[in-house]
């Protein structure tokens, strides 16, 4: 670690080496006072910082990532530390800079492309799908594309239809992409570091509303070698009566729903998918075989969604274990309305999850009344 830092500092002169030293000291301090809390924002920032420090091929590119320190401050401090050659402010040209990053990855650099929000990735979708995801296959393995596309995804608050959408199912449908959706600070750190180290294109779907949330983190999570496996879900809470699969911000909702359900005598198992593609079918199916009931939760649209895929997987592999129809909770099948009350109705709420879990357990209020 020291060697790497000294080396890159030497390349850049004294003032940088000072700031790098300061960061290292800060890093050491937070390490020593471990099992503290960390925000998702700091988790992402530290993961970027560590990976950039470890590998000079890693650079970050996007709108306002440098001097402005990131639209959501995820890249805060990186410009000072790594300079404008590696923290690159781009013009507002998603198609252009995404394609440039893909081209750089063709030559084995490791770009991290920040989309100010994933809604803007639609401007660059050609390069994500056609240039990044397909090149390794089209070139028969000659051209690999080690790149990360990251930024906030999903419903934000009060920003209307064009800025509030979950793209997990969209990118999850594409061979050649790996799609990650972190929930906690541990997820954010471990998955982002894995994504940057991965030799393939990774779509990294953050959530704006989680950036400021704090989560407890262990010393292990804070270690610079920490990394989470891509393609592996996490059982956030064990249970025996019903399985709830979900990802990103909805993990928090599902955990709260599980607390409510517990009071009513229902033990819910909450699976944080972490990876949308590859999808951890093994963990999902073994959980369903234990609980015999499944509720899928996502913010995105229902049709052809992540829940639909999970449902298909369970029907294919564990049909005979199901004791109730699969319950699918998703965003409303409309684009996001602006009005606060309508917006709330358009995305899943904790009570929706509670209701669905009860239905799956044949404990819905109406049935309880007749029973």
């Amino acid at each position, binding site marked *: 670690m020291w060697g790497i830092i000294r080396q890159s500092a030497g390349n850049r002169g004294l003032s940088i080496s000072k700031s790098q030293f300061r960061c290292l000291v800060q890093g050491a301090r937070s390490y020593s006072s471990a099992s503290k809390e960390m925000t998702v924002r700091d988790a992402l920032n530290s993961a970027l910082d560590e990976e950039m420090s470890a590998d000079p091929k890693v*650079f970050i590119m996007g709108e306002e990532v440098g001097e402005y320190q990131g639209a959501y401050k995820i890249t805060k401090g990186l410009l000072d530390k790594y300079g404008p050659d590696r923290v690159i402010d781009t013009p507002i040209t998603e198609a252009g800079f995404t394609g440039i990053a893909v081209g750089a990855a063709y*030559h084995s650099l490791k770009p991290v492309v920040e989309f100010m929000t994933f809604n803007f990735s639609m401007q660059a979708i050609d390069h994500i799908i056609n240039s990044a995801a397909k090149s*390794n296959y089209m070139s028969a393995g*000659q051209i690999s594309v080690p790149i990360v596309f990251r930024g906030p995804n999903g419903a934000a608050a009060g920003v209307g239809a064009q800025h509030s959408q979950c793209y997990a199912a969209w990118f999850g449908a594409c061979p050649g992409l790996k799609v990650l959706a972190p929930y906690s600070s541990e997820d954010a750190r471990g998955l982002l570091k894995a994504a940057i180290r*991965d030799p393939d294109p990774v779509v990294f779907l953050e959530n704006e509303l989680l950036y400021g949330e704090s989560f407890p983190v262990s010393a292990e999570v804070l270690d610079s070698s920490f990394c989470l496996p*891509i393609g*592996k879900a996490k059982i956030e809470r064990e249970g025996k009566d019903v399985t709830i699969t979900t990802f990103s911000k909805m993990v928090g909702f599902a955990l709260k729903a599980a607390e409510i359900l517990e009071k009513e005598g229902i033990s819910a198992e909450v699976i944080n998918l972490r990876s949308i593609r590859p999808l951890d079918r093994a963990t999902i199916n073994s959980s369903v075989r234990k609980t015999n009931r499944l509720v899928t939760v996502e913010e995105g649209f229902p049709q052809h969604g992540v829940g639909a895929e999970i449902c298909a997987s369970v029907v294919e592999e564990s049909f005979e274990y199901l004791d109730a129809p699969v319950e699918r909770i998703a965003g409303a099948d409309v684009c996001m309305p602006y009005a606060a009350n309508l917006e709330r109705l358009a995305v899943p709420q904790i009570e929706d999850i509670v209701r669905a879990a009860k239905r799956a357990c044949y404990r819905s209020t109406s049935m309880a009344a007749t029973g």
Partner: protein
Amino acid sequence: MAFSAKIIQPLPLFTTRSDNKNINNLSSPFVGSTYKLRLPTPIISSSRPHFGSASVVAVKSEVIKDSKKPKSDASSNLLITKEEGLEVYEDMILGRAFEDMCAQMYYRGKMFGFVHLYNGQEAVSSGFIKLLKKEDSVVSTYRDHVHALSKGVPASQVMSELFGKTTGCCRGQGGSMHMFSKEHNVLGGFAFIGEGIPVATGAAFTSKYRREVLKEADCDHVTMAFFGDGTCNNGQFFECLNMAALWKLPIIFVVENNLWAIGMSHLRATSDPQIWKKGPAFGMPGVHVDGMDVLKVREVAKEAVGRARRGEGPTLIECETYRFRGHSLADPDELRDPAEKAHYAARDPITSLKKYMVENNLATEAELKAIEKKIDEVIEEAVEFAEESPAPSRSQLLENVFADPKGFGIGPDGKYRCEDPKFTEGTAQV
């Protein structure tokens, strides 16, 4: 960093050509082309003082003209050496013969889908790519076979790819529009208009990054992006001209203006058809060159490659050329005027080079014939090779989705790869 963005005039096409009358008939400008629109452009010979360092090309063309006038015999005044001429000639013949064979094979059902042939445009591919080193990159479009050949990908591998065979340069997984060769730094044929330009700009960005961040001082690799006139109305073109000039990237934007999209004339599609003018608008030199004359193409290409290698930034070069066949083999090609086609057929770049070389005693007819014969054999062998090669095996279907060998979710041991505790460490190495 500051870049003096002076307006660069195009090559004085019709004046420099005066020493090269064999190549075309001066009195008949490009039919249906931008000729009329170019007329108001002043001839630059009298305005040399206006040109800054960025206008090397324009100055250079003057030099060529001046140096040729006084003497007519000395071989040092020729535009090309014998060796260079033979190399370029061979490459152009290879491109032409390869594409003609593709048409035959397509009609015999040996290749399928969209096959876009390059006939007529050989001066551009050979004129530019033959100046490159192996480490330099080429990014192409769906009309990519000949760019790959010029860059050194063996004809047998390209043909085999077109046949969909496992010995193809992409094992039959890419196809006509997606030629890749890591070894030769052919970074892809791209099937969408404009898609290759950012990728090429990224390759150029990598050269700069390696030099300035990774401290590989000797990394002077340049990238050439080839695309057509239709692409120049696409946003990605403008986005990348901006960033390439802004960051002084070692890239050459090569517009192969063959005057037509599929059935849409360039003049009907573009508000100002002089594409080269868009270079100065972004602070880079813009050059116009006769794309049917490989010697002229080579001159401007040399300047641009030199500029890129020296770290002086990008160049936009518009090569006015023509495709002798339809847009693809599926195109009935009914909208282009037969007179226009005949006009360009008479300006065949291969015939012109041949004439130049023979007239200037750079090669004998027999030498050139020998090259043609050699290429015929190469093409025959390529077809045989492709024909005899096996089709991809069934197991190949699921390979190469990820660079990560276990990326498909299940490792060679049959277990989910994510179950391996060393999973992420492993991927870091690949």
